């Protein structure tokens, strides 16, 4: 679908509502009689919406990175005096680490293999968020909890035990009752990961990327990044998100993100 500059300008003017009445009427007639033009207009609306979304995502990422940079800025001189001995030990460790990384096999195949092994290990592990939830809730008696908390605990416990087939139907029943609950959507995303449906998992996790609950949001972002390693052309996006996590002091996955990035050359 290659579009001429002249037609592109007309489509943009139409979508942005900048046409006068006469041009608008004529253009709408053209759309009604030309399915290619109707498709081009429809696609223009989608491209516009996608750029609005990606522009906002980029802006949020820049702001979060800036905040992380500011948090990292510390008065170096006074810290050095205070931590001189620690710094000496750290320098030795850093020297050994650098030597190790210089001497280790450094070809991409080696790294790629390790990277995917790391990702697979992460996917086969339990979710820390779900596990913490189950442990915290199990301390309290069922009468102290709301009906929704009890229902969610049941779903999360089954996921925690690795019974994903049962968990899937139970999660769907839970979401029928609490359709937009972030914890329920996360359960569904987690099951998708366990079933290796990574595109589906990405779609579900993307609904939770801006959720207010920080521990959940941090885990969502981490798994969202890892899922991108599993889809075609997803590596760049995965790395970008992991770099953001690695800069975030308040993410429980900061260290993991750093480790994975060291493999993702």
């Amino acid at each position: 679908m290659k579009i001429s500059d002249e037609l592109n300008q007309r489509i943009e003017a139409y979508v942005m509502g900048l046409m006068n009445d006469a041009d608008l009427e004529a253009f709408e007639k053209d759309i009604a009689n030309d399915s290619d033009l109707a498709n081009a207009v429809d696609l223009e609306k989608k491209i516009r919406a996608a750029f609005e979304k990606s522009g906002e995502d980029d802006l949020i990422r820049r702001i979060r990175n800036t905040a992380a940079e500011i948090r990292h800025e510390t008065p170096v001189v006074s810290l050095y005096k205070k931590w001189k001995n620690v710094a000496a030990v750290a320098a030795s460790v850093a020297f050994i680490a650098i030597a190790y990384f210089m001497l280790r096999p450094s070809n991409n195949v080696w790294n790629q293999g390790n990277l995917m092994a790391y990702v697979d290990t992460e996917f086969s592990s339990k979710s820390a968020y779900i596990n913490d939830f189950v442990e915290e809730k199990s301390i309290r008696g069922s009468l102290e909890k709301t009906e929704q908390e009890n229902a969610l605990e049941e779903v999360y416990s089954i996921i925690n035990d690795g019974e994903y087939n049962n968990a899937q139907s139970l999660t769907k029943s839970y979401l029928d009752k609490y359709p937009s609950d972030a914890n329920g959507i996360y359960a569904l995303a987690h099951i998708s990961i366990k079933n290796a449906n990574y595109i589906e998992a990405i779609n579900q996790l993307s609904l939770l990327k801006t959720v207010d609950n920080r521990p959940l949001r941090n885990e969502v972002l981490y798994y969202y990044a890892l899922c991108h390693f599993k889809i075609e052309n997803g590596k760049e996006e995965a790395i970008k998100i992991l770099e953001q996590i690695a800069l975030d002091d308040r993410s429980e996955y900061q260290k993991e993100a750093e480790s994975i990035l060291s493999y993702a050359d």
Partner: protein
Amino acid sequence: MISTSEGSEAIIERIIGGDDNALKKLYKDHFDKIKALAHKHARSETDAEDVFQESLVDMIKNFTADKFRGEASVGTYLYSICRNKFLNLNRNERIKTTELKGDVKIISLDVDNDIIEEEQILLSEIKNISEDCQKVLSLFYFYKKPWKEIAEHLGYSEKFVRVKSNRCKNELRKRLLQTPTFKSKYGS
């Protein structure tokens, strides 16, 4: 560096233009006041940071939508957005006392999966076009910049930027139509 007398419009324009130093300065200059405001509303520093970051995004979006044109200083404007957000946070928490902690009503699950898939593909393909193209189209679509300003910002003529933007979109359209999802819907 931003001078102390630099106007609100100029600071935001620099942020829109990709100047992260302007963003950093803005952050450093105003975040402490928002932390104090959070304290007054009995909110944590984490809340302060979340609210401040959301407010920065809102301010820039309002600026691009012509709802804020530097009639107040950046500091005053940010402060008022943040104050409203803290008030809303506290109000919403009072309303949701019976609901599960950490449960956030965000979006209905009755979302068409095809639409989500299309959006994912679009976002991914946007990242695959050249950085120049991403910049031009982002300034146009997200920051709502007129072609004349985009041309000035990038140092090209307006005519060239318009032609370039369509070339970029043709590249994006071509990439989209190579995916099965878009091919089945828009391929002729």
